[in-house]
Structures are given as structure tokens and as C-alpha cells.
């Protein structure tokens, strides 16, 4: 039984390592920050989860901790990648596209116009 757990653990660790490697490869190969976020934060999420689960199988007394850490990764990782992407876009880093598909640009433009209009109004108020 213990030996089976050990083998299962090693299999998970190896799968995790492969996905972490592919995540790294994606960061090198993909063209811009948004695509790199895809590879760097997501392939590595599954990689890290699988690796930690493997460790849990190798050391059964750590299993509960391993599962809790996996849940924490699943909860925190999307938040950080979302924040990075949104922050980059707000700093006017345009996504690399082949067919110019960018629905968010329209929204940013409208919002920018609204903000500019409000600033103008406030300036007028201050002047008067």
C-alpha cells in the first residue's frame, strides 16, 4: 500500500514538473505580457498543484496541509494574474494581436473620455 502511494506521489511530482517546465517555455516563446501571463501563471498553477499533491502522497501526514495549500493557490493565483493584466492595460501596454481583436480598448476609451469631461467640469468650477 505504502509503495503504491509512493509511486502515485512520484507520478504527480513528475507531471507537476513537466507543466512547470512548459509554463517556463511559454514565457520565453509567447509574444507579449498578456500571453506570457497565460503560460506563466496558469500552466504553473496546475504544475504547482500537482507537485504539492504528489508531496502529499509521498508524506501522507502532510496531506491535509497540502490540500489546504492547493486551495490557497487556486484562490490567490487568479487574483494576482488578473491584477497584473489590468494594471498593465491601465499603463497603456497594448496587447499583441493578429486580427486586432480588442473589446477592452473601447471601454477604456469611453471611460477616459468621461474622466476627461469630469476633470474639465471640475476645472470650470474652480475657475468660476
Amino acid at each position, binding site marked *: 500500500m505504502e509503495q503504491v502511494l509512493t509511486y502515485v506521489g512520484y507520478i504527480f511530482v513528475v507531471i507537476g514538473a513537466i*507543466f512547470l517546465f*512548459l509554463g517556463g*517555455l*511559454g514565457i520565453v*516563446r*509567447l*509574444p*507579449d505580457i*498578456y*500571453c506570457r*501571463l*497565460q*503560460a506563466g*501563471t*496558469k*500552466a504553473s*498553477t*496546475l504544475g504547482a498543484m500537482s507537485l504539492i499533491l504528489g508531496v502529499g502522497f509521498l508524506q501522507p*501526514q502532510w496531506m*491535509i*496541509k497540502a490540500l*489546504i495549500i492547493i486551495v490557497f493557490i*487556486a*484562490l490567490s*493565483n*487568479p*487574483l494576482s*494574474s*488578473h491584477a497584473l*493584466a*489590468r494594471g498593465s*492595460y491601465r499603463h497603456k501596454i497594448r*496587447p*499583441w*494581436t*493578429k*486580427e*486586432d*481583436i*480588442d*473589446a*477592452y*480598448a473601447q*471601454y477604456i476609451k469611453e471611460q477616459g473620455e468621461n474622466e476627461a469631461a469630469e476633470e474639465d467640469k471640475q476645472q470650470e468650477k474652480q475657475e468660476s
Partner: protein
Amino acid sequence: MQSKSLASKPVRFLYSWIVFFIVWLAFTSTLALPEVITGAVVALILAAFSYETFTGWGFKGIKLSNLWWSFVYVINFLWLMVKANFNVARIVVTPSLPINPGIVEFETKLTNEYAKMVLANSITLTPGTFTVDVVDNRYYIHWLDVTVTDPEEVYKEIAEPFERILLKIFN
């Protein structure tokens, strides 16, 4: 939040405290008295700071049907995540790099703030797509390999497998 009313503040506080305390017990995996007391105090402090955002419904959210659908959701989500991971791995190792990135939008039918957060995080965690921004009920999604741009079809492609189950849990 619209479909069910908020629980009262003490109930939400108690709920948060219990959840934090259970997580502490699971994490330390011991019932030694000093550990348990420390956990109770830490959970109390955490709950005092975060109960207002941590839970809206309190104990009313715990129902057998909710637990069942949450379980279905997690299994469904894990399956989609593994599938999507293989998809991105395939793209990365293909020499010609077959990608067509872009930012698309769609509108969600969800009204609950927690449900929207879960949907946004699920979309982010499945590789190939991530949420750039959520404005009211419009989602802006960066997609590594865009196949459709029409919001209706994007919705069907990306959000429907998650939303079908989320609607059952939160409404």
C-alpha cells in the same frame, strides 16, 4: 445578493469565526490545548477584521443542494482546467505557435457579487483565457486563441459550462 437577504452581523461574525477555526484545526492537524487556544484567538481576530466581506448569507448558504452543486462545480472545473492546460501546453510546444490573441467581451446572467467573483476566477484559472476586467455584468476576457468575437458566442464558448452550475448554487 438580490435573491437572498443578508444575515445579521453577529451571525456572519460567528460563521466566519467557525470557518477560520476549522481551517486552523485542519492545518495544524492537532488537538493540543495551546494550539487550539491560539487558533481560537487568531480566528477571532481574523473574523473581526473580515466578516463583513467574508460572508453574506451566513449559515443560510449551507444547504445540501448547495454542497452537492459545489461538489459538481469543483469536479467540472478541475476537468476543464486539466483539459485547458493540455491545450495551452500543446500550443506552447508547437513550433509554429498557433495563437490568435485578443480581448473579447461577454455579458453574464449572474447577479450575485460572489458568483461573479467565482466565475471570474474560474475563467482565469482555466488556461487560454483570463479576466482582464469586470464592469457591472460585462466581462473582458483575454483569450490566447480567439475563435469567435461575438459576445453571445463568446459567452457560450467560455462562460456557459461554469455559469450553468453557478446559477443553481447562487439563485
